[in-house]
């Protein structure tokens, strides 16, 4: 064999090793979960979307696009409204010699059947992942993309509605919200944007000093945004002007929650806060956990915090904790250890709270806890091998 061949083989072996590096970092995330009607939750868990009927304690279906060949990843929480489930994927490479990435948004219907129907899919709107949960309006779906765009798609057929998509300065990871024809979009570029829902034109933008990675929360004429600048910002809905800020001790990753005139939020270090919704004055604060990235959930006078656990423990061995606090005082009501870190925002389904867990090697696991008696809980592990 001529001497040059071993060199070529060696170089291509190195190339192969190089190309394998880092893919686990680039294309994975924690599950995204949404509660639908009739006690059904929809979870994006990696290779597909699974629908679980909690009342019947059974899995309805698992959806994986036929062409995906298991290469597509789904982690963005789906959006469900008017019998339509909308979600995006993390994109598929155009091939080994192609730089293009195809990212798609899907709309499923007949959700309560054994086999949901793909109403439409749209693959022309993004070159980077869909991480944000879409927003469904009466005739359109608003989708934020990781390549910084906000697009509006017709919910009948998925065609783009706006003449041009809106472009922010960085990725959109947070769920947009809508009020009276205006869409409010959080961005990692440290801005919150108000857009005209009809045209996509910008109405205002407000710099909050840090990235906003999760959804916005609205109450009356205020919008609340948790920011990486260690603050929660209350913005005027009409102008975007700052009305007040509440200081945390670390970045606020998960979205705040509003109930009965109070805004609740937890920072990345696990300190929980309650502040007045109108003025931002502190009601109580309490260290409750370690590493919190999930949004705060409040229901019926109880604040729920999902924690990822001790950062000094290896992720595979780390345990999560679900903590219930009194909304009035911040006093801990109960806490429950979970076998894996909790990154996904829990959802309330009727009288239960559902948490989703998926560590690097294990299967997706749902823990369903009875809110009236936290000691009563059950575990559901979807059979993800089943394909629709």
């Amino acid at each position, binding site marked *: 064999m001529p*001497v040059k061949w071993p060199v070529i083989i060696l170089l291509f072996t190195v190339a192969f090793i190089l190309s394998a590096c880092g893919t686990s970092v680039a294309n994975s995330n924690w599950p995204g979960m949404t509660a639908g009607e009739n006690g059904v939750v929809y979870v994006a868990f990696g290779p597909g979307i699974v629908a679980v009927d909690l009342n019947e304690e059974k899995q309805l279906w698992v959806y994986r696009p036929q062409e995906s060949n298991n290469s597509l990843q789904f982690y963005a929480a789906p959006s469900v409204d008017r019998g339509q489930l909308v979600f995006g994927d993390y994109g598929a490479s155009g091939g080994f010699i192609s730089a293009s990435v195809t990212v798609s948004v899907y709309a499923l219907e007949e959700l309560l059947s054994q086999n949901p129907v793909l109403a439409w899919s749209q693959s022309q709107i993004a070159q980077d992942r869909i991480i944000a949960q879409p927003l469904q309006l009466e005739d359109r779906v608003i989708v934020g993309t*990781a*390549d910084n765009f906000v697009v509006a798609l017709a919910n009948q057929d998925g065609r783009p509605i706006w003449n041009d998509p809106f472009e922010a300065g960085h990725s959109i990871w947070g769920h947009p919200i809508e009020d009276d024809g205006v869409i409010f979009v959080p961005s990692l570029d440290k801005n919150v944007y108000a857009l005209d829902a009809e045209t996509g034109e910008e109405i205002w933008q407000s710099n909050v000093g840090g990235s906003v990675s999760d959804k916005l929360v609205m109450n009356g004429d205020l919008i609340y945004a948790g920011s990486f600048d260690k603050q929660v910002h209350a913005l005027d809905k009409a102008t975007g002007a700052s009305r007040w800020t509440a200081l945390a001790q670390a970045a606020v*990753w998960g979205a705040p929650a509003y109930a009965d005139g109070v805004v609740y939020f937890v920072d990345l270090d696990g300190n929980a806060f309650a502040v007045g919704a109108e003025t931002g004055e502190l009601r109580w604060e309490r260290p409750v956990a370690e590493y919190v990235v999930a949004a705060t959930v409040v229901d019926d006078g109880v604040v729920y915090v999902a924690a990822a656990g001790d950062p000094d423990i290896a992720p595979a061995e780390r345990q999560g904790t679900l903590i219930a606090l009194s909304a009035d005082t911040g006093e801990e009501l109960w806490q429950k250890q979970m076998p894996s870190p909790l990154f996904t925002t829990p959802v309330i389904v009727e009288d239960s709270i559902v948490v989703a867990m998926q560590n690097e090697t294990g299967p997706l696991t749902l823990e369903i806890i009875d809110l009236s008696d936290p000691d009563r809980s059950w575990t559901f592990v979807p059979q993800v091998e089943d394909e629709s």
Partner: protein
Amino acid sequence: MWDALVIDPMTNALLFLYNILPGLAGNSFVVAIALFTILIRLITLPLNLRQQKSSMKMQEMQPQVQAIQKKYKDNPQKMQEEFKKIGYNPTESLTGCLPLLIQFPILIGLYRAIITLLGSTPQALFELTDRIYPFIDELVNVSEALPIPNKFLWLNLAQPDPFYVLPVLVFGTMFISQKLLTPSTKKEDGDKKKKKQDDNPMAGMTQSMQYTMPLMFGFFSLSFPSGLSIYFILSNVIGIGQGYLTRSSMAKEKAAQEAGEEIPKTTGIPAEAKVQPATSGADGRSSYKQPAKKKTSKRKRRSAKR
């Protein structure tokens, strides 16, 4: 261990540079990559220079080496002695690969560091916060600095270039850089060239590397993040400059050496004592003439003058 030794230091260094540097076209992360590239090239400069010089020297010696190998194929001891006489050290060609081997951990580390720093998913960004050293956390306001802006001109730094400009530039710059490492040869017809390559495997290897490496890295750039392709291009541009300087300095050295060889002619040193360059026969094969000692002592010169 790989993370602690390579990826984390690179990630923290890039994050630190990103925070102290001004933006270019609104993105100081590209400036941080540029400065990081220069730092890496400076650190590996002594090794790179040694490799370039050694590579050029080895290739120029090849005809002589082959002739010795052919002549003393049944006498390895004599072969080694002859190698020593012409200053050829076979292990030097292996140590010459060292800069190339060092480049691989740097490339893998940088690839991972760029992807980690750009934090293109919530999980990646969350994992990044675990990698940041406490003193960097104190120097840099990490929660406000992250995530790093991903756009630069038409590029998303965490994604491949959709218009294929960077892969072409990676190929072009690396090709020029490799070309500068290869000693220039006169144009030869195909058969002669092939025959020469068969006779001289190292020349063949260099020839194939000249095309394989740029093609391979251009090919990588189709699927690598643009940030890494920018590193490749900058690194190659610096390599071109470095290669050009090495080449001209070696040419000067050679000219000076040749000029020095003129002296014995006029001083009556016997022809056998001169350094004999390798020559090519009519059939294109190299032939070897026993070289004499390269340096003539001052005392010998003085006696010759007398």
